[in-house]
């Protein structure tokens, strides 16, 4: 009889039920969408913050103090130490290898350049320039057989190249925009380069064809960029680099993350190394690169950490507000559906149903609606999250089972809570006045 009453109530007034279900489904769709976007947004944003560029800098431990002013190093030529390029694949073997988004080694040498004029015999213009060797789009074979694509375009995403980056195995170069204006060379022209060597008397210039113009808004605008291999060959520093920029996905540092690993107990150290703090990633990189000093680029890491934590909190609060709105709306509509059944309740009570039975019947009905509406809402919400995620981040969030559970649970809780108040009042109804239509 109980089930029959429930089924009857649903089939008898389909339009009413449809409306309540629709309201429920919509509310839950919003809740689902807000939840899935929020769950996903943290990771997405962390990735988004990588547009700030590298957050770790690797330099040789034995290096002399750099005398760098405004991006130009005034150290005498040939002073300082280098690191071996062959160690680089090891970066993708550390515990946090999947958090390493990109890295790019840099080798800088000071070079002479010449520009051919109309006379083929001599250069029309000559000068000094900083030659930067790096990876533009380098495919690095890893020990596990896969290939990792990385380069300076990923560690320094704000570098803009007009034209294209140089290819690795041919003599191609990219000119800084200021330099290109100064010496009046553009894409397709040839630049002649030579790294002075006191041991040799004959100066041999190597030609490179310009494939792109780089603009960075910093010192590189005055430099020439070539592939790392080409600069190693020109500067006679085979298979070495001077600096390495690493861009890693990190967790914002808290007080625990800031502690010095040397003063930790083994248990703490393990917990510390198992959180992707920027300093613990730096620590594990240091262990695979002997002779290297790994430093956190504080400006990027600190700023990123602070902004990321407050943004995450903001998004959670917004989600919470959306959930609250959904809950109130659903609660209100389920309250409405109970209120309009006064007459029915009066009749049931007149026929001898107790308040408990009536309440139980209505609650069961509401729960049925909650499951149907919640399920529909979940499907709709995933669709909505897909659209929103695609629109804002370019990637849709993965549907998660947890969200489904939360959504259905919320739907059930909210409908019951919404019906509770009118149900309580309904239990106090005197059947006679209601049936008289008063």
């Amino acid at each position, binding site marked *: 009889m109980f089930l029959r009453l429930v089924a009857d109530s649903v089939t008898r007034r389909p339009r*009413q039920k449809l*409306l*309540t279900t*629709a*309201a429920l489904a*919509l*509310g839950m769709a*919003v809740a689902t*969408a*807000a939840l899935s976007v929020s769950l996903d*947004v943290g990771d997405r*944003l962390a990735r*988004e913050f990588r*547009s*700030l560029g590298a957050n*770790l*800098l690797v330099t040789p431990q034995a290096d002399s*103090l*750099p*005398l*760098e*002013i*405004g991006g130009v190093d*005034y150290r005498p030529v040939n002073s300082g130490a280098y690191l071996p390029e062959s160690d680089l694949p090891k970066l993708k073997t550390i515990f946090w290898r999947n958090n390493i988004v990109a890295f790019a080694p840099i080798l800088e040498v000071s070079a002479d350049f010449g520009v051919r004029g109309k006379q083929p015999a001599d250069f029309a213009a000559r000068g*000094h320039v900083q030659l930067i060797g790096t990876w533009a789009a380098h495919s690095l074979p890893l020990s596990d057989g896969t290939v990792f694509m990385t380069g300076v375009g990923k560690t*320094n*995403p*704000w570098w803009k190249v007009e034209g294209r980056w140089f290819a690795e195995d041919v003599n191609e170069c990219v000119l800084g925009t200021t330099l290109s204006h100064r010496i009046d060379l553009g894409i397709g022209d040839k630049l002649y380069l030579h790294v002075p060597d006191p041991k040799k008397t004959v100066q041999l210039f190597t030609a490179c064809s310009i494939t792109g113009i780089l603009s960075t*808004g*910093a010192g590189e605008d005055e430099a020439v960029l070539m592939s790392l291999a080409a600069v190693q060959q020109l500067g006679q520093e085979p298979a070495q680099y001077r600096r390495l920029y690493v861009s890693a996905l990190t967790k914002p540092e808290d007080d625990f993350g800031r502690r010095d690993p040397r003063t930790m107990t083994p248990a703490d150290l393990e917990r510390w190394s198992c959180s992707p703090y920027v300093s613990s990633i730096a620590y594990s990189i240091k262990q695979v690169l002997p002779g290297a000093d790994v*430093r*956190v680029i*504080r*400006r*990027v890491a600190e*700023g990123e950490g*602070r*902004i990321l934590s*407050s*943004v995450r909190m903001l*998004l959670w*609060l*917004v989600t919470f*507000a*959306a959930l*609250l*709105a*959904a809950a*109130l*709306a659903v609660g*209100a*509509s389920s*309250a409405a559906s109970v*209120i*309009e059944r006064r007459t029915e309740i009066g009749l049931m009570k007149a026929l001898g149903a107790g308040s408990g039975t009536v309440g139980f019947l209505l609650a069961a009905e509401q729960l049925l609606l909650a499951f149907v509406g919640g399920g529909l809402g979940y499907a709709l919400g995933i669709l*909505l999250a897909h659209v*929103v995620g695609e629109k*804002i*981040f370019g990637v849709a969030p993965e549907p998660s089972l947890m969200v489904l559970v939360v959504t259905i649970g919320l739907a059930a809780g909210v409908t019951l809570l919404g019906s509770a108040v*009118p149900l309580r009042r309904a239990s106090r109804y005197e059947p006679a006045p209601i049936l008289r239509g008063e």
Partner: protein
Amino acid sequence: MPALLTTNRRMFWRIIRRLLGANRGRLFVILLALGAGAAVSAALLNLQVDAKRRLTKEFRALGANIVVAPRGTSASPDSPKVIGQPLFDQLPAENEASPVTKAEFLYGIVNVVPFDPKEKDAKSHDSARAVVAGFAIAVGSNYEGRGLEKIIPSTIVEAQNLDSLNVRTCEIGQNLASELHLHTGAGLTLKYGDRGAFCDVSAIRSFGGPEDSQVFLELPAVQALLNLPGRISLIQASVPGTPESVDRYIAALAKIVPDADVHGIRQFTEAEAKIYSRISGVLTATVAIVLLLTGLCVMAAMTNVAMERRNDVGLMKAIGGASRRVLRLFLVEAALLGLAGGLFGAAAGIALSIGLGRAVFGVAARPRLIVYPVSVVLTIIVAIAGAFPLRRLTSIRPASVFRGEA
């Protein structure tokens, strides 16, 4: 005629009053839905306006975002390119009503010789060539002695308060400290040609950049040391505001100081613009969805109302009420509900956003007066739009209603 109009109008409002009072429970439910919608959308709108502003402030955790430098680069450290110090005061002190933090720097390469105050005779210590950076910082138009981290974020490795000693203090980078085995409290002699300057190390900082091997000292001392009075090599400024307003600031500044090169630090300005647009996208999408949701809920409630009112409408039409007037009656009712829900809801929402703002940014969100009328109007619009199902009432035929047909 006027008498009839007045009677008509009185009757109109009387019916409205009765309609509202007819079903207290339903009235409460609709008001709750509208009020909740208004509250949440007001809270989100207020937070959105405020969050975007605050977000741009949070971005300043990244330090400076614009640089003013002399044009061209210098070939050698001995003949550095410099600009005149008066330029520093020409930087507008505010952007979007928030103070601009700016710092002026003068760089030079000096010999750094440490001396231990405990050892009287200067023994042969390590010395190193290092970059000295003279700096002065101003927030808005007030000069401040400290606060290097506002321009170049860093963490402190070691710090010691030497204020009571009344000595000239300097801060040094981590690399320099480890190269010369320095700790706080140590004394340094900076030598440039035959000139010299002394300072005591008050802090060792870790920057993760070229600053790690620099000595930071007050600007006048470095100007005297390098014999460049009234000259600076660089200005860095941390300008708050949306990416567009920072661009405008840069453009305006470039006009004020035509002989220097003004540019944004692309690494930060571009990333800020990108992240800002993403986050404000999320906020805007949420506000839109919540408003839509409120509208739909009101619509569902109103459909119920419409069905219940079939008899009333049938009667009104039977005694000569025109469809338009009946419809107007219900729309006015909806608008009144929207107004009431909006007035209470929006006030609650603004209060809510103040609390939320405190939770996120540590500072209460400043209530924006504009948000209040905007959310009330939005709620009224939503309520009227939600009353759309009532349109079906106009197609009711009185006779069929009275016959009891569905």
